């Protein structure tokens, strides 16, 4: 599993990458009350704001960590946004993205590097 500076985790699964937010990010956000997911089969570019996530207090965006095509989204989050707080690293994945070049993952942080990044 790899990590971004924007507190996303990336887990390779076959020829796609599963993306979610870290426990640290979920804690910082607080109680999530609304999640808006991208359409499947959308081509996205790294940095595009593709998920809207709202806590009681404020709205935030999740950006595409990498260029690719959205092949699946986690509809369970639309029905139950609180899942983001309950299981951010597992059941509360946001989307699966198909990338051209899987070696692109090499550029992201390892778990140790991410822990340094958040000062743990």
């Amino acid at each position, binding site marked *: 599993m790899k990590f971004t500076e924007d507190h996303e985790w990336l887990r390779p699964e076959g020829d796609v990458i599963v993306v979610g*937010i870290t426990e640290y990010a979920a804690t910082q956000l*607080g*109680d999530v*009350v*609304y999640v*808006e997911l991208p359409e499947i089969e959308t081509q996205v570019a790294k940095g595009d704001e593709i998920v809207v996530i709202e806590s*009681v*207090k*404020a709205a935030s*965006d999740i950006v595409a960590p990498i260029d690719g095509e959205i092949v699946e989204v986690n509809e369970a989050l639309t029905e139950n946004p609180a899942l983001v707080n309950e299981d951010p690293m597992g059941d509360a994945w946001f989307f699966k993205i198909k990338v051209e070049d899987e070696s692109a993952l090499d550029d992201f942080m390892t778990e140790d590097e991410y822990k340094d990044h958040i000062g743990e």
Partner: protein
Amino acid sequence: MADTAPATENLKTLPLRALHEELGAQFVPFAGWEMPVRYGPGVMAEHLWCREKAALFDVSHMGQVMLPADEGAALEALVPMDIVGLSEGRQRYAFFTNDAGGLHDDLMIARHGDGLHLVVNAACAEADIAHLKAHLPAVDVLEGLALLAVQGPMAEAALSCLLPEVTGMRFMDARRMDWEGAALRVTRSGYTGEDGFEISMPAGVAEPFARALLADDRVAPVGLGARDSLRLEAGLPLYGQDLGPTISPVEAGLAWAIQKVRRTGGERAGGFPGADVILRQLADGASRRRAGLLPEGRAPMRAGTPLFEAAEGGAQVGHVTSGGFGPTLGAPVAIALLDAGVPSDATIFGEVRGRRLAARQAPLPFVPPGYKR
């Protein structure tokens, strides 16, 4: 997700800073103060705790001022309220008006035997004090005080263990009390829509007082985050969002707070800044009105969301002044300013991220108040 690194330099700290930290608070800058925004359980659980049990808030950032008891008439030159007729032991909601008929700030005024006790918003405190000093000779700005609020259906039961006298108070009563030798000013009021109390006390006794309250299982600390969602559900306006210099009290739905004696035909009618505008609006109506909104679906409509009467096209008919998620309702809620011509049963559309989402107009408050009248 963008990192939000709050600037912590030059912030004023609460007398209970260390206790909040011990209780697991996360802090944010608010109105120049470092404030606990939430504790361990999070905003949702804290909000629901206040609706079901008793929540302890630290609102010591608010400004406190004393005026001599006989300054009621002079204060009436700044606020459209009946202060002369405010009885000893009672409190009243008030606002400072400006010449255009908008508001400088909203505040609470309590009459005690030793004078008028004012509580003003932290963000406006400096300007309010300057405004008061420009018009009144003896403005005593109180320093070294803490202000704690205990709110919720179990607030009376919990607070009466420390202050038995509170059981004899009703909504908007104000009393001076003594706790372990310290002089307190207690009002039966608050800003959550629940029954509850606000207690002004010397900063030095705030910690033992708070600890004594928190020792009660029914009491939990609640932060600024839940305070905002609680007041939003209760339909209580926030200065800087629902109230401001270009919004009149009539537009903001606060006509109820202007007593008859200060209205046209009253014994002390007018005589406050913007009286011509405000009294005319009371008689003829205003061009905008406040409305509650219940958005369909789950997407919150935040402050600033532009509002329309149609799902497509048409001119903007207003905007959201406060909006978010209401944990008690389990759904988004908003307070809006709408053009007066919009029918009160019309479906409203809020433009959120480029899409128009439907919302139903609803009477405020969204949750029934728990005040002990």
